[in-house]
């Protein structure tokens, strides 16, 4: 039954807003919330409430499939923020060095920038291959311990990645902006740089053996502390 009170436009906007919620939330509550919005009088105040709470849910560990009160869930959020901070810091330092290189009139020759890009590509291929291999092993041997799985990125490789990524960033910032880029592309380029570093930091560290093992331990301890005997409500 649909209530006749409220605004039909507000109701349809509210129902559309349900799509903004994180996936674990939608799996669990989408049908119920839609039924509620179809029954109750919906005004723009309720739409605003849904929008605010959707943002709040994205900031909650529940967005990652963890119970909101779990320390392990918060670790996931803190880890994402940490990766972003590291990415921002790396990019900032690279910019300062690049600025000094440009100030001294040193030009980056094509072969240097190509080499830097190729090194980054090698790291990228290695990371994706490790992640793919990990997923295949997980599917094939679901009960094998994380530490026994092959293909994961080790600590030394992460150090190697950091050593390779940093010169790439310096070269990228030091080389002149290509003439073929449009004005808007030039303006959003710094944001793309930071995003790129963030993505690589995140993907590489997530594919590491230590991270996987840590996540598994955190998850099992967390579930045991909560007393779950079966699948918790927010498991994705």
């Amino acid at each position: 039954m649909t209530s006749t009170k409220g605004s039909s436009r507000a109701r349809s906007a509210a129902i559309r807003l349900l799509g903004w919620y994180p996936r674990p939330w939608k799996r669990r509550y989408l049908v119920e919330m839609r039924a509620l919005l179809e029954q109750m009088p919906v005004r723009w105040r309720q739409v605003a409430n849904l929008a605010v709470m959707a943002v709040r849910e994205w900031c909650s560990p529940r967005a990652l499939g963890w119970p909101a009160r779990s320390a392990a869930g918060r670790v996931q959020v803190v880890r994402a923020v940490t990766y972003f901070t590291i990415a921002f810091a790396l990019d900032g330092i690279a910019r300062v060095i690049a600025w000094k290189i440009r100030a001294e009139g040193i030009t980056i020759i094509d072969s240097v920038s190509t080499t830097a890009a190729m090194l980054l590509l090698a790291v990228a291929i290695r990371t994706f291959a490790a992640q793919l291999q990990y997923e295949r092993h997980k599917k094939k041997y679901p009960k094998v311990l994380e530490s026994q799985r092959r293909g994961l990125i080790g600590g030394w490789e992460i150090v190697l990645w950091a050593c390779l990524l940093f010169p790439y960033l310096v070269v990228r910032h030091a080389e002149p902006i290509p003439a073929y880029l449009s004005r808007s592309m030039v303006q959003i380029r710094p944001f793309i740089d930071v995003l790129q570093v963030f993505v690589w930091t995140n993907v590489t560290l997530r594919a590491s053996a230590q991270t996987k093992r840590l996540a598994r331990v955190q998850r099992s301890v967390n579930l045991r502390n909560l007393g779950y005997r079966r699948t918790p409500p927010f498991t994705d």
Partner: protein
Amino acid sequence: MPQTSTEPFAPLGRMSEVGFNILVALANAPKHGYEMLLAIEQQTGSQPGPGTLYAAIAALEERRWIEPIATDDPRRPYQITPDGQRVLRVQLAAQSAEVRFASSTLADA
């Protein structure tokens, strides 16, 4: 000195007030989302937003203070669990103690 009334609900943060209202609404019978909203309006004079309501439901469900009842109806009803009843009793006792303490303080003034 009475026990602080928000103690059992403190981990719920901003959801503590709505969480308490939901437990009161479910104390006598299972209810689905809209019935909860109407019951809360009857209790407090105002309705929480649908997003706030379901965030509080999720928090209570995580703590096993309420649980959904299996049904084919999309308007899934919830019922209070024995744990939820215990928490509600503790909360009500704490609030009663606060009211008595406040009344005695006012009487002494």
